[in-house]
């Protein structure tokens, strides 16, 4: 199998003897069997091809978690096109920026977003799985609207064959200038990841995975691609349910989920408020977590509650999907290592100022560099950024330089030590603080601004903005909130905007971030 296109395909499923009648996908209320899943994928793919999608074209997918969100992803791949997932909860402006950057002519989305398609110039066709026809006054001239009726009336399409090295999907992530950058992964990269995941976690057709990550977060590649490779069922947990840890635990117990993968934040919520005393979660044999650190005491508490499960700390920037894993075998007392190079990945620690210098010797700090079959092809239409982030080893292998600092522990496992830049993780989301700073400075009246992360001991992490204004604009805080809400996904909007007389600065005049953070901690 060379292509992702082969995964949810009737012929292949029958060939590997996956029972077509078995459940492949469920969202807790509706389900699809493998044959129904393959059929759905092939019909949506046919609709895309009918409406002009050609191999290599980018198709945006902006859908909340559901059986149809998974089917839509595979449909885009089946049509030989490149899948561009969008955050379904983000405001229109950042969505439009991604659609424009990736040059998507077709958008698969919900009915609500379909009515806003005029905000996405360049989109000439919008497909709404499960959608009723849009009334004439909501349609936009020149944009085809495809609803459920047309999908059901269209005969399933054959797979479109592309090269394994051709792009399969583009994951957009925050860039430090504020412009998001697209990380391109090929079919080969995604399949290498899916194979490695199936081997590492021993996935098979008896497994039942829970999908928590939204499509635009690369953790979802585990459920999107590793699950069908193994013939494992996926429970797609809808967003409304995710807001209630006690509902999540109930659904996970009811569906006898065997493998969980999410950011630590959600696991902590389930540990604290998931009513675990009243749930039988003994079906869980693996709990994968990644995206940020899991506070050791919280992790220890949850491990005690789920004795049948092995916890696995997964690390890897979206540029390489996953590159280390550390299975937690003893009760954590301090930060858990990110582990050793995963599967076919190779890892080096390099000097932050000269990547050709490899850091040798246990205990010395360096920047993590990775060479792996699961590496990105590059940043979309950004050869300079790609060149800046990667290098070619004399032996011919390609390496990606993460911005992450690490040190090798005595046992050879890597310990994560932080970033070389100002990228942070808040509740699992990757955020470039400098990008938010830049946006704040666009507000009339703001002369200086900086955003810091407040990580209080007994409360959730949050962003706090410190702003200096020139007093010319009344209600500057309201204007700031309005601008940020329109331009950023919700998790990136600071919870607190504080107007201050001046920002703390270093001797060279740059904003002193540690001092700014201390300011926020001490005034709380």
């Amino acid at each position, binding site marked *: 199998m060379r292509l992702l296109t082969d995964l949810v395909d009737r012929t292949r499923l029958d060939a590997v003897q996956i029972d077509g009648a078995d459940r492949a996908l469920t969202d807790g209320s509706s389900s699809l069997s493998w044959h129904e899943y393959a059929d759905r994928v092939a019909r949506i793919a046919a609709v895309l091809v009918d409406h002009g999608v050609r191999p290599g074209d980018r198709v945006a997918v902006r859908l909340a978690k559901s059986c149809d969100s998974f089917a839509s992803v595979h449909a885009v791949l089946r049509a030989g096109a490149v899948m561009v997932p969008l955050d379904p*909860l983000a405001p229109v402006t950042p969505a439009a920026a991604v659609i424009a950057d990736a040059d998507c002519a077709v958008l698969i989305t919900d009915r609500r977003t379909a009515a806003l398609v005029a905000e996405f110039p360049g989109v000439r066709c919008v497909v709404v799985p499960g959608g009723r026809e849009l009334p004439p006054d909501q349609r936009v001239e020149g944009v085809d609207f495809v609803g459920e009726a047309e999908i059901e009336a269209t005969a399933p399409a054959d797979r479109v064959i592309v090269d394994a090295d051709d792009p399969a999907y583009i994951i957009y992530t925050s860039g430090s200038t504020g412009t998001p950058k697209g990380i391109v992964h090929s079919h080969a990269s995604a399949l290498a990841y899916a194979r490695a995941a199936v081997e590492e976690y021993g996935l098979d057709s008896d497994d039942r995975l829970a999908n928590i990550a939204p499509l635009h977060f690369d953790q979802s590649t585990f459920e999107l691609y590793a699950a069908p490779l193994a013939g494992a069922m996926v429970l797609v947990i809808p*967003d*409304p*349910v*995710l*807001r*209630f*840890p*006690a*509902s999540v635990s*109930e659904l996970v117990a009811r569906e006898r989920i065997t493998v969980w993968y999410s950011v630590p934040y959600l696991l902590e*919520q389930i540990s604290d*408020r*998931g*009513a675990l005393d*009243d749930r039988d979660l003994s079906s869980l044999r693996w709990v994968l977590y990644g995206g940020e650190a899991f506070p050791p005491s919280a992790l220890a508490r949850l491990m005690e509650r789920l004795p049948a499960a092995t916890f696995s700390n997964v690390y890897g920037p979206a540029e390489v999907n996953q590159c280390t894993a550390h299975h937690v075998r003893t009760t954590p007392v301090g930060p858990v290592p990110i582990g050793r190079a995963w599967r076919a990945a190779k890892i080096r620690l390099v000097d932050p100022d000269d990547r050709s210098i490899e850091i040798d010797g246990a205990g010395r700090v360096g920047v993590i560099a990775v060479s792996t079959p699961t590496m990105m092809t590059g940043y979309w239409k950004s050869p300079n950024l790609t060149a800046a982030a990667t290098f070619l080893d004399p032996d011919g292998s390609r390496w990606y330089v993460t911005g992450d600092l690490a040190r090798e522990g005595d046992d050879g496992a890597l310990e994560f030590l932080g970033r070389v830049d100002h990228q942070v993780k808040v509740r699992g989301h990757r955020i470039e603080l400098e990008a938010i700073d830049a946006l704040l400075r666009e507000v009339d009246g703001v002369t200086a601004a900086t955003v810091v992360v407040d990580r209080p001991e007994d409360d*959730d992490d949050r962003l706090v903005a410190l702003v200096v204004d020139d007093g010319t604009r009344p209600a500057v805080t309201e204007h700031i909130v309005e601008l940020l809400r329109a331009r950023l996904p*919700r998790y990136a909007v600071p919870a607190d905007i504080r107007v201050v007389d001046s920002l703390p600065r270093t001797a060279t005049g740059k904003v002193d971030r540690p001092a700014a953070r201390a300011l926020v901690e001490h005034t709380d």
Partner: protein
Amino acid sequence: MSSPGQPTTQVDDAFAERLVALIRDDVAATDELVEPATDLLLTGLVDSLGVVVIVDWIEQELGIEIDPGDVVLEHFQTVDLMLTYLRGR
């Protein structure tokens, strides 16, 4: 704020109005209209932190403790569902 042994606030119309006001003014992530039958979760009007704020406020107002196992979608999806749950306790 009530204390044990004291008469607690009733789950009446006035309480319902205060609950709607709390959600609209302190919890809602967007400016959409909040009414007793409004689905708070489907559109992202209320996120998981918002749920915590609502539960804490209800517990304080009524002087009760809500079992974490009862903090589920079925009881908190709309204000009407919250009231039904609270009256049935």
